C-alpha cells in the first residue's frame, strides 16, 4: 500500500482518538472534522474520488457543521466541559476499552482469515457510480427520498418549539 | 353422532346458563342441572341397551378437522369411556346441586365454567384423536382455574396458579410426545395422522418409544397425581369451592388415570413394561406417602386431598400390573374414588357452611348435632379405608390381587397402605364427629337437597360394593392389558 495511506490512516486514528478523549465538545467536533478529512484521503486512495468529495462536503461540511451549530445554540460552555471531565474518570475507560479491544481482536482475527488473492485497488470512476445509482438502484434512490422525508417529518414534529401545551385536564385543574 | 351431541349439550348449556343468569339465577341452575341429567340419562340408556357381544367401539364418529395435519374430530366410546362419562355426568349433576346455595355470587359465570370443564372432561374421555385429546386436555384447565381462583377459599389464587402451572407443564411434555409419535409414525408409514387407531402399533425404536412414553406418562402422573408431582393437589383441592373440589377429585384426576390406560399402555406396550416397576413403585410411594401426609393434616379438605394422593396410587399400581384383574380394579378405583372422595368433599363443604371452619382442631363431637352427616361420613370414611361392602374395597382388592401377580413386594407395601389408610380415616371421624362437644348452639343437620345428594352417593357406593358386576362387565370389553 501507499505510504500516503498509512499516513492518512494514522491521522484518522489519532484524531479519532482525540475526539473520544476530549472534554470540550467543540474540540471533539473539530478533531472529528480532521478525522473525516483523513478518511476522505483514504477514500480517494481506494479509487473513490467522488466519495471522498462527498465525505468532505456532506459529512464534514454539512453534518458536522449542523452539530456545531446545535452545540452553539445550546450554549454548552465551560461547565459542560468540566462535567465531562468529571465523568470521564480513568477507571470508566477500563471495562469498555477492554471489551471493545476484545471485539476488535476478534474482528481482526476473523478478517485476517481472508484468503482472497492479493489484487490492486480498482478505481471506480464517478460515472460508473452515477450509472449504477440511476440504473439498477433507482428504486433505492427513491426510497432514500422517502427516508429523508421521514427524517424531515420527524424532525419537524419533534423540533417544533414547544408551546405551553399542558393537557386539557391539567389546564383545568391547575389554572 | 350422539357423542357429539353429548358435548354440544354441555357446551350450549354452558353458554345458555351464563346468559340466563343475568335474568334468573334459579333458571341458570336448572339449565345446568337439566343438561347434565339429560346427558346422564342418554349415557345410561346407551349403557342399558348395550350388549356385550357388540363391537368394542360404539358410536364411532369421525369428521376431518385439520386435514393438513391429519387431525380429525374423532369421537368414539367403549366401556371405559362410557363409565367415565357416566361418572362425569353423575358427579357433575351433584356439583350443580351442591352449589345451589353455596354459590350465590356470579352464578352464571360459575355454571358456565362448571359446564365447560365438564365438557372438556367429557371430550377427553371420548376423543380418539391425539390432537383433539390434547385440545380438550388443555381446554378443561382454564375453567377449572377459574373455579378454583374465583370461588375458592383464602389462598385460592396461589392454589389455582399452582394447579395450572403443574398441569400445563405436564401437558406440554405430552404435546412433545404426541408430536414425536406423529412424526415417528409418519416417517415409518408415510401416513401423517393423529388418529388414535392409526397410531396404535406404530413401529418404533425402543429408545424412541421410551422417551415418547415418558412424555405421556409424566403428563398423566402429574394429573393422577403421583408423588413427587402431587403437590398441586392438596392446595387446589383445599382452596377450591366444594363443587370445584368434587370435580377436581372426582373427575380431573381420572383423566390422568384414563390417559395411562388409554394411551400409555396401548401405544407403547414394550416401553410401558420396562417402566412398570418404577411406575408401580411411584404408586406405592404415593399410597404410603399420601397416607402419611393425610394423617398429619388439620385442615379437613386438605386431609381428604391427601387421601386422594394415596388412593390414586392404587391406580398407578394396578395400571402397570398388566393383568385384567388389576386393570378392572383400576377402573373400579377410578369410579369409586370419584364417588367416595367426592362425597367427602361435599360433606366437608356442607360442614364448612355450618361451622365456617375447616380446621379439625375446632371440630369435635358433632355427632350429637349432625348424626345424619356423621353417618354419611362414616360410610365414606369406611369406603376410603377399604371396607368390604363398599365399592372402594372391590377396587382396591382387585388392584392388589392383580398387582400381586406382577410384583409381590410392592403389593405387600401397598397392602400396608390399607393400615395407614385406617389410621387417617378414623382420625377424621374422631376429630370431627367424636369427642367432647363444647358447642352450645344447634346446627342444622343435612337438609333435603343435601340428603338427595348424599343418598345418591351412598346408593352408588353400596351398589358398587355389592354388585359391581355391571361395571366390571362393561369395562371388561377392553383388552388393554398388554403382555
Amino acid at each position: 500500500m501507499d505510504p500516503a495511506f498509512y499516513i492518512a490512516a494514522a491521522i484518522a486514528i489519532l484524531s479519532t482518538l482525540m475526539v473520544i478523549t476530549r472534554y470540550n465538545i467543540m474540540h471533539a467536533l473539530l478533531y472529528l472534522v480532521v478525522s473525516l478529512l483523513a478518511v476522505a484521503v483514504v477514500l480517494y486512495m481506494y479509487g473513490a474520488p467522488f466519495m471522498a468529495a462527498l465525505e468532505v462536503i456532506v459529512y464534514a461540511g454539512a453534518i458536522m457543521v449542523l452539530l456545531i451549530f446545535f452545540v452553539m445554540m445550546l450554549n454548552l460552555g465551560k461547565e459542560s466541559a468540566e462535567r465531562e471531565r468529571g465523568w470521564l474518570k480513568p477507571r470508566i475507560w477500563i471495562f469498555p476499552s477492554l471489551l471493545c479491544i476484545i471485539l476488535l481482536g476478534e474482528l481482526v482475527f476473523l478478517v485476517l482469515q481472508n484468503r482472497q488473492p492479493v489484487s490492486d485497488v480498482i478505481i471506480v470512476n464517478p460515472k460508473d457510480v452515477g450509472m449504477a445509482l440511476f440504473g439498477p438502484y433507482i428504486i433505492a434512490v427513491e426510497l432514500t427520498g422517502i427516508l429523508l422525508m421521514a427524517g424531515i417529518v420527524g424532525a419537524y414534529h419533534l423540533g417544533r418549539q414547544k408551546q405551553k401545551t399542558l393537557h386539557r385536564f391539567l389546564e383545568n385543574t391547575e389554572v | 353422532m350422539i357423542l357429539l351431541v353429548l358435548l354440544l349439550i354441555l357446551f350450549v348449556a354452558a353458554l345458555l346458563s351464563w346468559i340466563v343468569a343475568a335474568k334468573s339465577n334459579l333458571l341458570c341452575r336448572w339449565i345446568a342441572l337439566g343438561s347434565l341429567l339429560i346427558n346422564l340419562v342418554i349415557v345410561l340408556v346407551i349403557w342399558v341397551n348395550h350388549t356385550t357381544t357388540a363391537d368394542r367401539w360404539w358410536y364411532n364418529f369421525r369428521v376431518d378437522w385439520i386435514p393438513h395435519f391429519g387431525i380429525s374430530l374423532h369421537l368414539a366410546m367403549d366401556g371405559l369411556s362410557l363409565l367415565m362419562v357416566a361418572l362425569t355426568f353423575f358427579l357433575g349433576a351433584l356439583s350443580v346441586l351442591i352449589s345451589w346455595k353455596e354459590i350465590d355470587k356470579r352464578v352464571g359465570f360459575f355454571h358456565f365454567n362448571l359446564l365447560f370443564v365438564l365438557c372438556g372432561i367429557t371430550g377427553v374421555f371420548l376423543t380418539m384423536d391425539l390432537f383433539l385429546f390434547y385440545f380438550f386436555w388443555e381446554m378443561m384447565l382454564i375453567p377449572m382455574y377459574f373455579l378454583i381462583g374465583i370461588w375458592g377459599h383464602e389462598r385460592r389464587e396461589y392454589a389455582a396458579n399452582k394447579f395450572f402451572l403443574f398441569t400445563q407443564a405436564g401437558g406440554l411434555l405430552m404435546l412433545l410426545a404426541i408430536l414425536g409419535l406423529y412424526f415417528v409414525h409418519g416417517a415409518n408409514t408415510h401416513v401423517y395422522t393423529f388418529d388414535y387407531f392409526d397410531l396404535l402399533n406404530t413401529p418404533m425404536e425402543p429408545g424412541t418409544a421410551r422417551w415418547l412414553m415418558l412424555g405421556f406418562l409424566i403428563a398423566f402422573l402429574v394429573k393422577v397425581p403421583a408423588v413427587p408431582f402431587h403437590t398441586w393437589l392438596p392446595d387446589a383441592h383445599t382452596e377450591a369451592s366444594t363443587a370445584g373440589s368434587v370435580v377436581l377429585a372426582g373427575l380431573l384426576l381420572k383423566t390422568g388415570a384414563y390417559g395411562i390406560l388409554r394411551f400409555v399402555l396401548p401405544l407403547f406396550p414394550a416401553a410401558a413394561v420396562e417402566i412398570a416397576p418404577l411406575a408401580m413403585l411411584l404408586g406405592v410411594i404415593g399410597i404410603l406417602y399420601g397416607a402419611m401426609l393425610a394423617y398429619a393434616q388439620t385442615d379437613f379438605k386438605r386431609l381428604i386431598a391427601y387421601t386422594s394422593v394415596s388412593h390414586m396410587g392404587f391406580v398407578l399400581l394396578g395400571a402397570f400390573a398388566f393383568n385384567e384383574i388389576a386393570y378392572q380394579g383400576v377402573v373400579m378405583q377410578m369410579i369409586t374414588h370419584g364417588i367416595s372422595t367426592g362425597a367427602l368433599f361435599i360433606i366437608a363443604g356442607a360442614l364448612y357452611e355450618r361451622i365456617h371452619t375447616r380446621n379439625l382442631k375446632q371440630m369435635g363431637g358433632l355427632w350429637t348435632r349432625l348424626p345424619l352427616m356423621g353417618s354419611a361420613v362414616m360410610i365414606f370414611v369406611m369406603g376410603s379405608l377399604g371396607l368390604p361392602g363398599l365399592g372402594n374395597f372391590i377396587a382396591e382388592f382387585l388392584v392388589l390381587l392383580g398387582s400381586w401377580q406382577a410384583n409381590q413386594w410392592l403389593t405387600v407395601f401397598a397392602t400396608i397402605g390399607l393400615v395407614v389408610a385406617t389410621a387417617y380415616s378414623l382420625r377424621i371421624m374422631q376429630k370431627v364427629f367424636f369427642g367432647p362437644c363444647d358447642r352450645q348452639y344447634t346446627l342444622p343437620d343435612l337438609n333435603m337437597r343435601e340428603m338427595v345428594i348424599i343418598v345418591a352417593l351412598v346408593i352408588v357406593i353400596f351398589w358398587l360394593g355389592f354388585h359391581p358386576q355391571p361395571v366390571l362387565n362393561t369395562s371388561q370389553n377392553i383388552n388393554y392389558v398388554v403382555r
Partner: protein
Amino acid sequence: MNVHPTTAGMLLAGVLFVLGLISILVRRDIIFMLLSVEIMLNAAGLAFVVASSHWGTADGQVMFMFILAMAAAEVSVGLALILQLYHQLKTLDSDEASKMNG
C-alpha cells in the same frame, strides 16, 4: 510491504469503528454519543468503499451515499429529539433519562 489493500482498509475501518464504540460506551453526554455513532457509521461507509475498490463495482460507493443520507436524517431527527430532552431535563446527561426501568 505487501499488505492486502482490502484487508488493510477493513482493518482501518474496524479500528475506527471500535474507537467509536469505546466512545459511545464511556460517554454520558448525549451529543457525544451521537457523535460516536457518526464515527461508527463513517467507518462502516469506509468499509463499503474499500470493498467496492476490491471488486471494482460501484455498489459499495452507492451504499456509501445512502449511508451518508441516512446519517444526515439520523442526525437531524436526533438533534430535534435531544433538543426536546434538553428542554425537559435541562441536561444532556443520558443517565438522567432513566425514569423507566425494571
